[in-house]
């Protein structure tokens, strides 16, 4: 009898195959005395050279130019004279090769961590390079994603962007992690690649490598030790479902013709081709942060006009919902000169930045208006992190002042969800950001893997708040969209529609399966599923009732 492990399904679909774990980072062995320093340095140098060579091979294999460039930059970090000098000094002081490598990286690690920002995020790269070199010295496989040359289900404690930068979708057919949550990197990656995935699945790391498993990204279940026949049958039916989903195109609608706009989330014009390929009906979330990141000065009006125009031009005639700058204490921008706040997620962020710097918003709205006037896109503008009617009124006035026709607000704060009907008196539409709405409703940090169960988008309290917004939208006859990760879950899509949501915006890769899921239900069924899910005692039961 196969054993069943249960986690949180974050990307629907089934995958069957052998389970392989990501190789763990090696622990540093006990120090050993060094007798021949020259030979010891030779070993260390050879290990670093092998790390550089391996990164080069991965860069050659990578099909994405950005990924290849990241890998080559990492190789350059491992192929560093100062690093080798540091290793040599430590070996001369009597340290063995693994400890000398660890020590030499630690010097740079400190400098990177102290510099903060972008460099502090690169600390993980340094640790990865060190782990790779130490693994070579110990004769262990280099930590990272296996490449056995056949399809398999990848298991890990959690996945970091570095692990998955060159993930080969021909080999990796599903993801399962021991920790993580619905908004963790693993979940986002899975939805971007359309890979069935289960996170927060305790016990998965105890499964021996090579065991045949059947992963169900909808129910969150992992059947361990299935038969060859069962695995083959599941793989075949998964292929049929995928084939069926890819033949459906056109506007989103339920089986009885109730229209639901299927839109794409983008960060720049670069993402537009993927949205087109997925037959997106427009853009439901155009994030504008990209232009502002890592900038000492605010981007100029002309620069902003050019960036917005690129996306608007590509989307001529279609809807583009553009979100004003969503930055602040949690995602600090140098030009805003924000000092550290004790609790940045609850600090001055999103629209709240305009309390101190109204000019940033005015300039951005002027740029959006100018870019719109030069193109034919149907531009809607919305503000992030709105909590009150007063804030919504002020924002809507600023949008109209700039000559823009449609103003909306994001619903991320429970206070705003509860007063959705009020907000819709002053704005034209709402867009629910489910990731932040979860975080603030459950008082659970989005980045906290231990609280993943609280951040499950199937939590009935979250669904109830979405329902409040949906009902307000129906009463006012105004659109209510969802642009958080929850919109990408094909099982949840009919429930959201039943709650009154009129558009779903997601990673382009997720659009096909969501379109197929909606086409399989009538509008009345969606409403019934929504009632059942909201009435469920917990997230697992809500999900089960929607199947």
């Amino acid at each position, binding site marked *: 009898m196969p054993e069943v492990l249960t986690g949180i399904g974050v990307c629907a679909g089934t995958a069957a195959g052998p389970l392989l774990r990501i190789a763990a980072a090696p622990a540093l062995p006990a120090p050993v005395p060094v007798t021949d320093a020259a030979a010891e340095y030779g070993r260390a140098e050879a290990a670093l050279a092998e790390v550089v060579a391996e990164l080069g091979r991965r860069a050659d294999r990578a099909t994405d130019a950005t990924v290849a460039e990241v890998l080559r930059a990492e190789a350059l*970090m491992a192929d*560093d004279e100062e690093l080798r000098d540091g290793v040599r000094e430590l070996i001369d002081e009597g340290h063995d090769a693994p400890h000398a490598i660890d020590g030499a990286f630690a010097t740079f690690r400190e400098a990177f961590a102290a510099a903060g920002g*972008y*460099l502090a995020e690169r600390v993980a790269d340094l640790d990865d390079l060190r782990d790779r070199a130490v693994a070579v010295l110990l004769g262990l496989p280099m930590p990272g994603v296996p490449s056995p040359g056949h399809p398999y289900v990848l298991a890990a404690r959690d996945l970091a962007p570095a692990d998955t930068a060159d993930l080969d979708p021909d080999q990796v057919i599903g993801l399962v992690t021991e920790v993580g949550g619905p908004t963790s990197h693993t979940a986002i990656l899975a939805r971007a690649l359309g890979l069935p995935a289960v996170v927060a699945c305790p016990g998965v790391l105890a499964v021996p490598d090579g065991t045949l498993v059947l992963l169900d990204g909808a129910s969150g279940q992992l059947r361990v030790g299935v038969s060859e026949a069962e695995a083959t049958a599941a793989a075949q039916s998964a292929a049929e479902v995928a084939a069926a989903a890819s033949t459906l195109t056109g506007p989103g609608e339920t089986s009885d013709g109730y229209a639901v706009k299927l839109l794409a989330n983008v960060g720049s014009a670069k993402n537009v081709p993927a949205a087109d390929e997925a037959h997106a009906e427009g853009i439901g979330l155009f994030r504008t942060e990209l232009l502002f990141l*890592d*900038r000492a*000065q605010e981007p100029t009006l002309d620069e902003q006009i050019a960036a917005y125009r690129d996306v608007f031009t590509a989307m001529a005639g279609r809807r583009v919902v553009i979100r004003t700058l969503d930055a602040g204490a949690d995602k600090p921008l140098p030009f805003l000169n924000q000092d550290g706040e004790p609790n940045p997620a609850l600090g001055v962020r999103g629209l709240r930045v305009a309390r101190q710097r109204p000019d940033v918003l005015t300039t951005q709205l002027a740029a959006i208006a100018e870019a719109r006037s030069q193109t034919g896109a149907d531009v809607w503008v919305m503000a992030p992190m709105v909590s009150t009617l007063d804030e919504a009124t002020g924002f809507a006035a600023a949008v109209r002042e700039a000559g823009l026709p449609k103003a909306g607000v994001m619903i991320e704060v429970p206070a705003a969800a509860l007063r959705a009907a009020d907000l819709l008196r002053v704005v034209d539409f709402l867009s629910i950001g489910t990731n932040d709405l979860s975080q603030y409703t459950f008082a659970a940090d989005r980045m906290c893997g231990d609280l993943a169960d609280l951040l499950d988008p199937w939590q009935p309290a979250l669904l109830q708040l979405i329902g409040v917004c949906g009902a307000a939208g129906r009463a006012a006859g105004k659109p209510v969209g969802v642009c958080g990760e929850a919109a990408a879950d094909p099982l949840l899509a009919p429930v959201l529609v039943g709650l009154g949501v009129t558009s779903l915006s997601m990673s382009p890769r997720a659009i096909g399966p969501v379109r197929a899921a909606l086409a399989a239900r009538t509008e009345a069924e969606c409403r019934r599923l929504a009632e059942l899910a909201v009435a469920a005692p917990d997230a697992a039961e809500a999900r089960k009732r929607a199947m």
Partner: protein
Amino acid sequence: MPTRTVTVGSSSGLHARPAKIFVEAAAKAPVKVTIRSGDRKPVPAKSMLSVLALGAKQGTEVILEAEGEGADEALDSLAELLAKDLDADA
């Protein structure tokens, strides 16, 4: 000693791609070039880790130094590279 003071022009700072382009160019120079920012000690310009550790952002002033045959030419071309926005031609 030949010296150049340059303001970093790349919009993302001297990180990632701009750092890689600069370090690769410095490695090809016929002389040993150092780079420093503020009062900190000069580091080899061909060391990716040291250059990254400067944490130089767009607008940060850095000082390049080199000695020997071809130092001036090497510094000129590296200074020119640093002043450009290397993110712009991505």
